[in-house]
């Protein structure tokens, strides 16, 4: 079997005259959690959005399951690949279950409407994300973390093999960040989903990724396991930040400790004290 279900071929992305991603060849391994990292404005969200066909490439192509995505209808893509964009506004007047139900849209046609099967899939999606108890509550009444789980439930109801998430933890407190990423981890482990996430927090990225991709200068700077990617050199080059990289005491994945002006002073003070 193929190991890549998603692949970009010399993909160039941009807005008007500005090129954001230049001739990128990226393979996303099947059944793994891939996390894209990089500095602000490096094009990682743009890349994710174009893989999700929310943004038209300037040139190049994207392959999904060995097929050119241009050849697939948008509904066909929606059966294979789900995306949760970064900015979601909770629609007014919708309950949790009404929103999650929308995830079945690509599987419905004018003649084939709501079925028992659809109902079952929606209930499963709500159960695995822990929002089943809130099924009848309005989405607008939920907290940020709960809302994010509802959106993820909606993408699960789509029953796709691949799930793309654009900064799913932004605006969430640390406990909810862990909760959302644990959920992604579970979906990968239990359901074997291929998951691609754009994430800002490098330590969390290193914890949850099988495969990490660091972007810089419109292309890939480094990719591989978190241990291969997260290095002091990478931090210097990609983020222009001096760091120590140590082992996360809990997960044994790499963990970055950035130097800062304040830290430099503390280190000196300590040196004097000794």
């Amino acid at each position, binding site marked *: 079997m193929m190991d890549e279900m998603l692949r970009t071929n010399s993909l160039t992305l941009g807005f008007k005259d500005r090129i954001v991603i230049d001739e990128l060849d990226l393979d996303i391994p099947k059944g793994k959690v891939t996390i894209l990292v990089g500095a602000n404005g490096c094009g990682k969200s743009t890349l994710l959005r174009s893989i999700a066909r929310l943004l038209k490439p300037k040139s190049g192509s994207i392959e999904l399951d060995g097929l050119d995505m241009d050849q697939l209808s948008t509904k066909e893509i*929606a059966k294979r690949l789900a*995306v949760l964009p970064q900015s979601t506004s909770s629609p007014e*007047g919708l309950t949790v279950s009404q929103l999650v139900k929308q*995830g079945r849209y690509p599987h419905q046609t004018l003649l084939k409407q709501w079925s028992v099967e659809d109902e079952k899939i929606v209930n499963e999606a709500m159960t695995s994300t822990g929002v089943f108890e809130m099924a009848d509550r309005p989405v607008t009444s939920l907290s940020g973390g709960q809302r994010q789980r509802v959106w993820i439930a909606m993408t699960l109801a789509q029953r796709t093999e691949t799930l793309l998430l654009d900064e799913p933890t932004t605006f969430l407190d640390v406990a909810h960040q862990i909760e959302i990423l644990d959920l992604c981890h579970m979906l990968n482990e239990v359901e074997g989903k291929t998951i691609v996430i754009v994430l800002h927090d490098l330590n969390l990225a290193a914890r949850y990724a099988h495969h990490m991709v660091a972007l810089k200068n419109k292309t890939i700077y480094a990719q591989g396991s978190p241990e291969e990617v997260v290095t002091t050199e990478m931090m210097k080059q990609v983020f222009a930040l001096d760091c120590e990289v140590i082992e996360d005491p809990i997960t044994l994945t790499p963990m970055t400790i950035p130097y800062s002006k304040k830290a430099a002073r503390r280190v000196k003070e300590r040196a004097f004290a000794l």
Partner: protein
Amino acid sequence: MGERLLTTRSKIFGLILLILLFILSLYMSIQVGQQQVAWYVMFDALMEYDPTNADHVILYHRLSRAASAILIGLSLAVSGAMLQALTRNPLASPGVFGINAGALFFVVVAISFFSIHALTSLFWFAFAGALLAAVLVYVLGTVGDEGFSPVRVVLAGTAINALFVSFTQGLLVTNEANLDRVLLWMAGTVANRPIEVLLPVIPIVIVALIIAVLIAKPMDLLHTGDEIAKGLGQRVLTLKMLIILVAVMLAGGAVAIGGMIGFVGLIVPHIARFFVGHQHLWLILYCVFIGAILMLNADVVGRIAIQPREIPIGVVTALIGTPFFIYIARKGFKQS
């Protein structure tokens, strides 16, 4: 927040009540007026219309009024619901979108420059004006890097609306002879609209309603956001074009019949949403009947309030609509 009628059964029950209320309003509209006509005459007239019988003629006039009111009411209501869904803006309506003003301007141009007075011809001018205004507003609200933005659409709508109203007033000031003919269009009326005038509008309204029902489900999806809808495999642009098309067909038809009747397209979708929430299939069905009921009753009120004169129906809807508009605007600001 959410809808009051949660289950499908209660929604069907509500719809049946609305239909009964609609029939009652229709009956009132034909019965109530300055001239009393015994109720059994109605059946006589229906069975065998006698153009020499004064009572029959009165009934015929009232029936065509009622038909105009129904067509205008349901068209504006559904049109407003479509535009509110399109822009995700609770204050959107054919009026705010400039559709009414565009249609009116074209009608005034037709009367002033081409001396066209037949209502059936004016209908097509009204329709073209409605389309032009809608396209202008949509383009102005969409062009730019960030794409379609509800706020910019409403701003564009306000500007286009003001533009067409000014053009219209300019034409009328320079050419006062036509003022009389146009004045009723501006106030909005359902009086003296023979049924033949309505005939070309009916198929357009029916086609628009069929499209509206067919795109009801995709519109539910659009409500979750453009990108979500795209991610779920919806062709968002096509859908938006269809929504605009339906809104223009309906509002254009309504303005062509009755002129500038404000607020119906704004408030009826809110009343409908109060009952059935954001499920657009139900929303459209409820808008059809609530819009028709509102207009039938507004017409009756306008007819009997200051006898022997009549208040134009557009004035009645404005009297009901203004406080409602302020209420929605304040509610909307509180939420955001």
